[in-house]
């Protein structure tokens, strides 16, 4: 075995392998260690140490046959070492050692450990991180930290809060899990239907935060999308009986397939009707469609499946003009009945305007405006502006665009509205 530092090329290749392993294995390792030790911080530290060792040793010794099993064994050995130092955990140490030999047959990571017998504890971890007794923001932070291995600093950056605030949020959540005894368990079959929507809501929130970038633009936000997709994939596999998990996955994939075409070179938002559809990721659209069909076959509709079906209608249209708007309007009707959400009603108004003309859309919109539930939401005046423009009522369109631009949060959305405003003004004069 050579002690000389590896060539740069080897190191960077191994670095990529470790990065891949990190994405695939981090959650499995922390989930297993939390299950076995009950100590969240210990689990994170040992997982981190295992990846650090991989970065040091794999360039020198070569990548093991089963990187996941190697990492799991190293992390578990680390946990045993740390627990041994504090005698109160002696019982746990023995338990861990027994588990290690039962699962992998060896405590030596280099002696061909086999991870086929290691139970996947990630489902427990997902349900604990997304427990309803934790605040939503804590659920999101904890899920990203423990299941995807995003660092506290990265999560803080993604959600635009100071790192100290995010660190406090994580500590608080872990304290509550320990003090209030939030169980590390998959809910019973009878409680599962009640708990799954909460988990899906966390994953969807993470995805949306990455996708819609409510403020600023940062690479880390795109990374959030990928992590949300990967976690939803895990959930869909581990909960095969839950069509909504597959529905959500399909929805995310349909959206992500359009990512490249959504923003132009200047960073401006491009409306779906103006997007270059050849830049959509058609392989991803196919995958989304496969998951959606699989979900729908269970014949238990839900909001994510319907939303995915709507996204699928858009994805199926070769041109904006070819979009099946009557079907989309019909799907929104279903979704509105199911959720009672005013945002869904707004989207229905848009679809109806496309299917039956802007006057029909405007009638629905006016009902919504009278209702007042969406007051202050920029898409409400933005939609009215669009209907007015299409009805040739440019003066009313201009004032609605102004109203919307004043309410819109970020750069691209506001720039788009101001550009529309300039257009209707020029037609008006």
């Amino acid at each position, binding site marked *: 075995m050579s002690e000389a530092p590896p060539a740069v090329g080897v190191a960077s290749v191994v670095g990529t392998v470790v990065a891949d392993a990190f994405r695939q294995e981090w959650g499995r390792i922390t989930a297993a260690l939390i299950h076995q030790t009950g100590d969240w911080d210990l689990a994170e530290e040992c997982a981190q140490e295992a990846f650090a060792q991989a970065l040091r040793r794999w360039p020198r010794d070569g990548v093991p046959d089963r990187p996941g099993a190697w990492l799991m064994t190293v992390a578990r050995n680390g946990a045993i070492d740390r627990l041994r130092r504090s005698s109160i955990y002696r019982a746990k140490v023995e338990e861990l050692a027994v588990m290690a030999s039962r699962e992998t047959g060896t405590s030596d990571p280099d002696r061909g450990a086999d991870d086929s017998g290691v139970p996947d504890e990630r489902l427990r971890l997902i349900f604990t991180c997304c*427990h*309803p*007794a*934790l*605040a939503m923001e*804590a659920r999101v932070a904890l899920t990203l930290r423990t299941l995807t291995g995003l660092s506290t600093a990265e999560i803080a950056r993604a959600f635009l809060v100071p790192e100290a605030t995010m660190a406090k949020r994580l500590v*608080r959540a872990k*304290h*509550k899990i*320990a*003090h*209030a*005894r*939030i*169980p590390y*368990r998959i*809910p019973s079959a009878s*409680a599962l239907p*009640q708990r799954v929507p909460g988990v899906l809501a966390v994953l969807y929130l993470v995805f949306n935060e990455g996708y819609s970038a409510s403020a600023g633009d940062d690479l880390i936000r795109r990374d959030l999308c990928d992590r949300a997709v990967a976690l939803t994939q895990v959930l869909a596999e581990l909960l095969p009986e839950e069509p909504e998990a597959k529905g959500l996955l399909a929805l995310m994939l349909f959206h992500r397939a359009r990512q490249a075409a959504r923003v132009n070179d200047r960073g401006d938002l491009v409306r779906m009707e103006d997007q270059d559809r050849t830049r959509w990721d058609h392989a991803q659209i196919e995958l989304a469609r496969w998951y959606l069909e699989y979900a729908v076959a269970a014949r238990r509709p839900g909001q994510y499946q319907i939303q995915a079906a709507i996204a699928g209608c858009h994805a199926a249209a070769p041109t904006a003009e070819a979009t099946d708007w009557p079907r989309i309007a019909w799907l929104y009707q279903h979704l509105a009945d199911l959720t009672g959400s005013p945002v869904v009603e707004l989207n229905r108004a848009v679809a109806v305007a496309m299917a039956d003309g802007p006057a029909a859309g405007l009638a629905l919109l006016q009902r919504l405006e009278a209702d007042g539930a969406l007051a202050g939401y920029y898409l409400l005046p933005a939609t009215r502006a669009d209907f007015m423009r299409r009805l040739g009522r440019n003066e009313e369109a201009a004032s609605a665009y102004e109203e919307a631009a004043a309410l819109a949060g970020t750069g691209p959305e506001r720039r788009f509205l101001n550009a529309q405003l300039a257009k209707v003004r020029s037609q008006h004069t």
Partner: protein
Amino acid sequence: MLIHTGAPDLAEAWDDEAWAALRSWLDETIGSGVGIEGGPLGLDADATTVKVRDGQLIVTDGPYAETKEQIAGYDVIECPSLEEAVRWAGRHPHSWMGAVEVRALAGGAPAVHLPEPGAGKTRYMMLVCTDPAAGPREYASMEPVDPWVAEMDGRGIRLFGSELEPPSAARTVRVRDKHAIVTDGPFAETKEQIAGFDVLECGDLDEAIEVAAKHPMARVGLLEVRPFRRLGED
């Protein structure tokens, strides 16, 4: 019932003097046969609030109401009069570190001395609280609590509990510069108010939530479950 309250960072403010005062308070109340049961409770951050609306279970992080002074612990003492209970409250360290609310158990319910927690069990204080959104008609149409009490007593989950005299009958004691200030009403002027309590022993929070959700008040009011504070816990 004495409800001890203080600022959330109170734990750091406990000095030797406060600990000594607490020890002698406990010695005296227990020695004179007044002190019956009590204990320190987890902070607001460890509390969970449960309600059921339209058949849907709603679980939220946090206490029944946002207050500046947080509930830190409780004691049930047996006194011939509210005035005497107020005097005991004024000698508890929480009366100068925060406030102590004094509330009589409704109908003079007998206090119970509790055994040590069972192995693998977690003890929770469940506060039964009113929700200002509900009107008198909703409270009037509430189902009786007795079947819930019977079920939870039978399952060995409910150890002790009682309805409390209404908040209007509460006294709150604060000692400032060695002077006791006694005010009428509860420790915090919140719209939500504590109406009763139950001490539960459960396997985990999911069981405590299930038990709370079955309480008839879950459909009209709010139930807060917060763990007892275990010694040596940060």
